[in-house]
């Protein structure tokens, strides 16, 4: 059996741990730039606030709601405490996302785990237990808030799946749902009743795995360590949209430095680099380049990204508001392909080491590339100190 622990409105619950007076009042957590609500309490949800609602709409929907600035460091600290408690009841635990984990059930005591997390972390969670990961996740989702649901028999499984939209299953959304709907498959019970060959034809082997999982036949294992990355991407909104080349280039370098942090954490190098830009009022563009050998060096990646920038940014008058730097074709650091044209010297490695050591002690980005000088306002603004994708070790985004 597999268990799924899912925190109830995690960011809000985490805020209520340190500000207990927020309990019972409508709360919205505001995202990285102060404009969008990225999490809401059940009270705020009842007032019509949704995830992604801009704050100015939230204010109209629920004038009494309290807004809190996101603090991903705090959420990560509580997330890791929750994970430790799950590890106390199971030898195999998957750190799925910041507020969710899967575990192999040794003793079925979901209420005990739920009570322990509430008492020792302060966060209410819902727990689902079922023969497969997909069913366990559906169980906890259907028992929210602060519920427990266990599915052991076929009858209980059928009862769980009856009438649930197929889009509730993690991995089925958008185009997949449209393809299924064309065959009159809109609910989970219709999905499992369909022929698995049809599902494979429509959704490939990935969809077929879900078909087996929903039938109670486990095919997705609990991953106790994160599978090797296919790629590592860093980026997102750049705040105010801009067409200033120096500012855009500085954001590219900032994201390269974030990519390098992640490459170092996972001890990998990359063979390719992709830069993608989204523009206001024009289609987004992305271009990839191959690197001279496998590298995780800030200088190499920065040069590559800045070489890509004018090639992606056409016409240069377009206003940039979103970007991603993506490291592709990753290899373990110990197995990297060296280049005949390698420029990295012992001195460069020492500089990287010193930079990392200083930043570990003084703070992230305390020492950074001078190319990011046009972003002094961003670095000086304490609101920009942390970004969610930089939480390492999760198996899901």
């Amino acid at each position: 059996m597999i268990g799924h622990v899912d925190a109830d409105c995690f960011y809000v619950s985490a805020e209520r741990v340190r500000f207990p007076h927020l309990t019972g009042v409508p709360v919205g957590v505001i995202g990285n730039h102060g404009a969008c609500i990225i999490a809401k309490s059940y009270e705020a949800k009842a007032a019509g606030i949704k995830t992604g609602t801009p704050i100015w709409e939230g204010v109209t929907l629920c004038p009494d709601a309290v807004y809190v600035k996101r603090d991903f460091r705090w959420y990560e600290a509580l997330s890791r405490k929750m994970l430790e408690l799950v590890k106390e009841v199971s030898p195999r635990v998957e750190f799925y996302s910041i507020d969710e984990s899967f575990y192999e059930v040794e003793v079925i005591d979901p209420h005990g785990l739920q009570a322990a997390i509430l008492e020792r972390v302060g966060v209410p969670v819902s727990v689902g237990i079922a023969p497969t990961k997909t069913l366990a996740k559906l169980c906890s989702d259907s028992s929210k808030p602060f519920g427990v649901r266990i599915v052991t028999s076929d009858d209980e499984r059928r009862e769980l799946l009856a009438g649930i939209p197929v889009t509730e299953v993690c991995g089925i959304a958008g185009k997949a749902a449209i393809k299924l709907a064309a065959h009159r498959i809109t609910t989970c019970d219709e999905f499992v009743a369909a022929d698995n060959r049809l599902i494979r034809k429509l959704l490939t082997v990935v969809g077929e795995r879900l078909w087996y999982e929903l039938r109670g036949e486990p095919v997705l294992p609990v991953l106790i360590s994160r599978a090797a990355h296919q790629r590592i991407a860093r980026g997102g909104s750049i705040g105010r949209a801009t067409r200033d080349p120096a500012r855009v280039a500085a954001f590219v370098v900032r994201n390269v430095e974030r990519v390098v942090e992640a490459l170092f954490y996972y001890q990998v190098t990359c063979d390719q680099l992709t830069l993608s830009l989204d523009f206001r009022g024009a289609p987004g563009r992305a271009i990839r380049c191959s690197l001279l050998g496998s590298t995780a060096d800030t200088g190499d990646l920065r040069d590559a990204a800045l070489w890509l920038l004018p090639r992606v940014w056409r016409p240069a008058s377009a206003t940039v508001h979103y970007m991603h730097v993506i490291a592709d074709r990753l290899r373990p650091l110990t197995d990297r392909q060296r280049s005949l044209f390698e420029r990295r010297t012992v001195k460069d490695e020492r500089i990287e080491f010193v930079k990392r050591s200083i930043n570990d002690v003084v703070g992230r980005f305390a020492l950074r590339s001078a190319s990011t000088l046009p972003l002094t306002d961003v670095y000086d603004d304490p609101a920009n100190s942390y970004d969610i994708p930089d939480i390492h070790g999760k198996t899901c985004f």
Partner: protein
Amino acid sequence: MCSGVAILRDKLTDPLILRHELGWRLHDRSLDHSGRFEARFMFAERRPQLPVVHDGQLVIYEWGMAFEKNRKCFRVGYCKEEGLRADNWRYLKPEPVVIPADYGFERGVWFAIVEGVRGIVVRDEQERPHVFVLTQPSTHYYQMMTKRDREPVLVEQVI
């Protein structure tokens, strides 16, 4: 800026509520009206007030001062931190204080406050105390949230 603050009812003593007739300021923020009361203090009131910790005691003072210019009455309730540092307020002998608050309010947005807001107290000719909220240029984040270019100086907190 910060056009209002709220403090939890539990932090106010009954004598303080009676003495300053704060009963009308109490609001229940919970949607189910489960009794999570707080006292709200807004600058837009006719005679605005603020809770202040002054000389170690929680008291209620008038928020800012009213002036008359060209037959128009206006009220000043804020003090720029840069101006205070430049000693522009020295002749008024300002005393630094903390305005204890759990929530701040600006342009319809209520935001959580950890400890309180920094302010100054100055006395008028009759030695009556008036409290002014200290402000500083907004962070990008606060500006996005409230569309204001100045934000209150908070105790050990940056929004």
